[in-house]
Structures are given as C-alpha cells and as structure tokens.
C-alpha cells in the first residue's frame, strides 16, 4: 500500500504541471460556491447589523436604496439635500435622538461626515486616542483612515477641493485631527468625522475672513453702506480655523436652509417611530425610510442574483467533474503500456486500481486543502472585500 502511494505521488510530482492545473481547476470549482456563500452571508450580516442599529433615516424623496446606502455607508451620491430646519422640526417634535448628517465632501478621497455629537454615542464610537471634534475645524479619524494615511492626533488633514479653478468656491480647509476612533468594523472606520458646522464651511455657506472695514485694496471692495460691506469673491478667506480667527466665522443667510444629506432617528419606542414616520411621510416633502426594510429588499435582489450564481457554480462543478473524468480516462489510455507491464510483472488488479485511486485522492485532497486555504483567506480579508463591494 505504501509502495503504491509512493508511486502515485512520484507520478503526480513528475507530471507536476498537469497535476497543478487539475488541482487548481477542482479547487476553483470548490472555492467559488463556498466563497460566494460566505461573502453574501457576511455581507448580509454587516448590512443588516448596521441597518438594525439605525432605526430610521429621513432624506430627500427619490431612490430609497440610495438614501439608505448614503446615510449608512457615506457613499457619494447625487441625492438632493434637505434643510436643517427639517431636522430641527423632527428633533423638537418627536421624542428620541435625532442626528443631522452631511457626507457630501471628501478628504483625500475618504468621506467627511458632518454629524451631531449624539452620533458617536448611538454608534458606540469612542476615540482610542485624543478627543471627538469639539469645535469647527476639528476632525476625528476612523481607524482605517488613520492607518491608511498614517495620520494621528495633532496632524492636519485638508479637505478635497471640488472646484479647483473656481476662486469663488471655498478653498480646501485645513482641519485639525483631534483624535482617532476605535475600530468598529463598519463604514465608520473608513470615514472622517467633523461637527456639522464644519461641513457648512466646506459648502461655502459659512466662512471666516479678515475685517472687511480694513480692506485697503478697492478692487476687493464691491460695495459699502453704513450697515453692509460687499467684498469681491476673490477676497481670500481663511482656510484654517484657529483660536485667533474662529470668532470671525459666520453664516450668510438663513440657518434653516443649511443643507443636510439626511438625518438619522433613534426613536424613543416603536410608537414614537410610527408617529414620526407617519408625520414625515404624510406631511413633508421628504421621505423617511426604515433601513432594515430597505436592506431586506436589497438582499432579496442579491439572493436572486445568488441563485443565478449558484446555478452557474453547479454547472462549473459539473463541467469540472466531467473534465476530471476525461483527464482520468486519457491518463489511463496514456498509461496503458505501463499498466500492462505492471500486470505482466504480477501486480494485482487491486493494486493497479489503487494507483489511480491514490492519485485521484491526492489531487482531491490537495484541491480541498487549497480551497480551504483560499476560503480561510477570503473570510479573513472579507471585511475589506465587503468595503470594496
């Protein structure tokens, strides 16, 4: 028996290219369904866990999937904004926690998420270093962002400027990193968080600049009355908020029109949630969605796709089995003379069969081992894969 095993392994080693190709083919046929099942299962877990942690989301009318995914995962979207006053109305009228959210800007391609302070409490986010953003211009980094950009508390992070050649738009804002959040294994790890007022500076609605009464250059001064001074858009605004200039920051216009991507609601109880949904969906021109319901609908689509994928995997597995049988038959044909010699020498029929069986078992064992290894690696890096998805 050991001799047959030895010969089988020697044969496989001698034909190592063919062995490798066959092993890989079988391993791929095993990995695909296993990995896809694991991926979808983990994807579903992550999505539903975050959705369950966010009872209600209010945002502009339109695609509810887009609203839910934008508010939960900070995806850049073309979603219309809602006004700050809507948030204030919900906050004042309904019991529970209501958190404003704006994620329309980025810093080095990571989303800048403007939120209220309550957001950190509701998500269970705590800094492992430094503090949460306490004032305008402060930023706290998600764990992955800090690692990827190699930034830490005390460093600075510039926002990405959307319109580089439009001098009327606000310049990139230099933000001070006040802390780094602990790992949450969620989208929060891949975002940077600022106070909602900082977002309005990025929007160009709020800004700070020097005393306009002291402008010497007449080209910068477009108009002046006893009550107001109109300065040119070319007049340089501050691009960093410091203790010295923070007092100069101000908002032009009505604060109730300030834009939000959405606001998140953690209602006091189910009754409050029902009343809030009814109130907003019936009496306002924006929508309130239940993220879990949206995610369930989304997963239903994913599962339909998975059924197709499973069918394809089954076809792939069947074709791999047929090809493996073909390879074995061809191999038997190629080795016919060798087998005849073994028979002539006195090798038993059982032993000749054993040679083939050992080889097949060895290839299957290697394929299973490889498939298990790949599946393990996939499961290890799965959170990253899910972020890519």
């Amino acid at each position, binding site marked *: 028996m050991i001799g047959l095993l030895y*010969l089988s392994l020697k044969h496989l080693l001698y034909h190592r290219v063919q062995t490798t190709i066959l092993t890989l083919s079988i391993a791929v046929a095993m990995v695909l369904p296993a990995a896809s099942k694991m991926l979808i299962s983990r994807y579903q877990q992550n999505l539903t866990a975050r959705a369950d942690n966010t009872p209600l989301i209010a945002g502009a009318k339109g695609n509810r999937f887009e609203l839910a995914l934008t508010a939960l995962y900070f995806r850049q979207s073309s979603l219309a904004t809602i006004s700050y006053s809507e948030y204030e109305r919900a906050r004042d009228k309904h019991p529970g926690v209501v958190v404003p959210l704006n994620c329309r800007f980025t810093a080095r391609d990571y989303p800048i998420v403007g939120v209220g302070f309550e957001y950190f409490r509701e998500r269970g986010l705590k800094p492992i270093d430094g503090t949460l953003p306490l004032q305008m211009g402060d930023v706290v980094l998600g764990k992955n962002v800090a690692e990827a950009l190699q930034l830490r508390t005390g460093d600075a992070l510039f926002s990405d400027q959307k319109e580089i050649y439009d001098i009327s738009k606000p310049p990139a804002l230099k933000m001070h990193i006040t802390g780094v959040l602990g790992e949450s294994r969620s989208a929060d790890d891949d975002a940077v968080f600022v106070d909602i007022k900082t977002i309005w500076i990025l929007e160009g609605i709020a800004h700070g600049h020097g005393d306009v009464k002291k402008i010497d250059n007449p080209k910068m001064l477009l108009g002046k009355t006893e009550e107001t001074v109109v300065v040119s858009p070319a007049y340089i605004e501050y691009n960093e908020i410091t203790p010295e200039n923070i007092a100069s920051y101000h908002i032009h216009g009505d604060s109730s029109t300030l834009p939000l991507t959405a606001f998140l609601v953690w209602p006091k109880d189910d009754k409050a949630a029902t009343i809030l949904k009814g109130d907003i969906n019936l009496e306002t021109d924006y929508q309130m969605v239940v993220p879990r319901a949206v995610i369930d609908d989304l997963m239903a689509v994913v599962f339909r796709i998975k059924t197709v994928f499973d069918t394809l995997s089954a076809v792939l597995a069947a074709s791999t089995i047929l090809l493996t049988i073909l390879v074995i038959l061809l191999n038997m044909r190629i080795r016919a003379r060798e087998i005849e*010699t073994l028979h*002539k*020498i*006195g090798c*038993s*029929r059982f*032993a000749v069969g054993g040679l083939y069986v050992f080889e097949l078992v060895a290839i299957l064992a290697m394929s299973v081992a490889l498939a298990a290894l790949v599946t393990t690696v996939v499961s290890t890096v799965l959170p990253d894969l899910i972020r890519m998805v």
Partner: protein
Amino acid sequence: MNVVSLMVPTLVFGLDLGSHPSDNCDAMPPSSISPAADDDAARVVHRRSPLISIDQLLFTYAQVERHAFSLKVDRLEIGNSEHVACIGPSGTGKTTLINLIAGILTPECGRITFDGTTISNLDDARRRALRISSIGLVFQEFELLEYVTALDNILLPYLISDTLRRTPDIRVRAARLAESMRISHVLHRRPKRLSQGERQRVAICRSMITEPKLIIADEPTGNLDPETADITLDLLFNEIRKRDATLLMVTHNHSVLDRFQRIIDMTELNATCSTPILNH
C-alpha cells in the same frame, strides 16, 4: 534446490487442486490419476523433476481479421538452472509460450506446472502472486517507469505488491545487483537519462530483485546495438549462473545461441501455428 533459491520469497498457494476446465479438454487424454493425487505426486516428485513442465497444451487466440492462431505443445520440460533459447519466425508462438509459462495467459487445455505448482489451475490473483515472487520478466522495450529513478524501477516488484515481504536488506540487494550489472552510478537517474544498455540492465535488475527461480526474457537485446547486446548478455548470464536460476529467452539473434544449453525451435514445437481460416 540450492542456497540462493531457498532465499526466494516463498508463497504458499492454496491447494485448490480440483479439476480445472483445461484438464478435461476433449482433445486431451483423460488423466490416469485424480487431480489431487496428481498434484500430490507432483509435490513429491518435483524436487527432482523439471522446473517447468508442459503437457498437452492447447491455446487459441480469438479470431483476428480472418486469422486464428493456436499453439499446441504436447510435451515440454525445462529443467532447473537450464538456459534455454526459444527461436522461430514471427507468428510461431514464442511470446505466447512464455506468456503461458508466466501465467499471463491461460491455456484452453493442458497443464503447465511451475516448480510443482500447476499454474493453469490457479486463479488470476494467485498466478500474479506466483509471477511476482518466482518469475522475473525482461522485455524487449525495457518497460521502465519513466517517473521514478532506476533504483525505484529495480525495487518496483516490492512497491506494487504486498505479496513480497519488504525487508531492510532489499535496498542492499538492489545495490549489489546494480553493482554486478555495472549501473551503480545511475541508480538515482530517471530512465530518460540512461542509455539503452543501462535501461535494459535496470530492467534485468528489476527481474532479479525477488531472486526468482525463472527469468523469462523476450528479445532482451532486440533494441540494443551488437556491442551493447553482448555486454548485456554477458552480465545477464553471469548473474543467472551466480543464482543458479533458469533462463528462458526468446531471441531472433542466432549468433547468441551458443550461450544456451538448449534451443527450442517453435516451428518444430508447434505444428498448428498461424493457421489462416480463410483461403486467400
């Protein structure tokens, strides 16, 4: 039986000595003694009797393209330690005869006895077991496994069979054989990296590793140049003599016949060879 042959891995075959279909062939005269008695008698006598004994053998190949082939041997004996050449034109049944003696083929009728055991009465598994332990085969095309080394090829019978007992001295025996066949320096090479002569010497070592009583060689020098063939035969005969083994060799090369003690001419032995069944 000499000392060397006592070292041969021994097998005890079940004494399934009931009548075999081939014993009762219509063309053959009925045995005068019962099969069991016959076998017992053979066991008593075989120590002094020939190593191989063939009686009233008839073998027919299935019809192939309008030709049938049959081999009929009334009586043939090959003695212990005898060196016998088997000659004859192609199609006279040389290879068929050695395949029958080796138990690779089974006769329709008649009896083949090897060292007291009636091969034609054994089932396939027992014939294989007998072959691997007591008969060494050398082929014209060497028939080495390309994916293992020369040493592993020599040890092949022990790798493919549980019938043979693996003892620690097998490798030593293989090394000694290789040394006597002058291939010690190539033991760890694969056949692809060996010359034709070296390959055939590896094949000869393989046939002798179990220390069989009988070596059957089917045109072993057919693929070798004359000089290499001579060297190979010298080494083969030396080794056979050392072991006191019996050699049955099929050959077309009449220049080597003086090395043998006896020559079997198949045209004389087999009167029924290559019979066309349709007239052209």
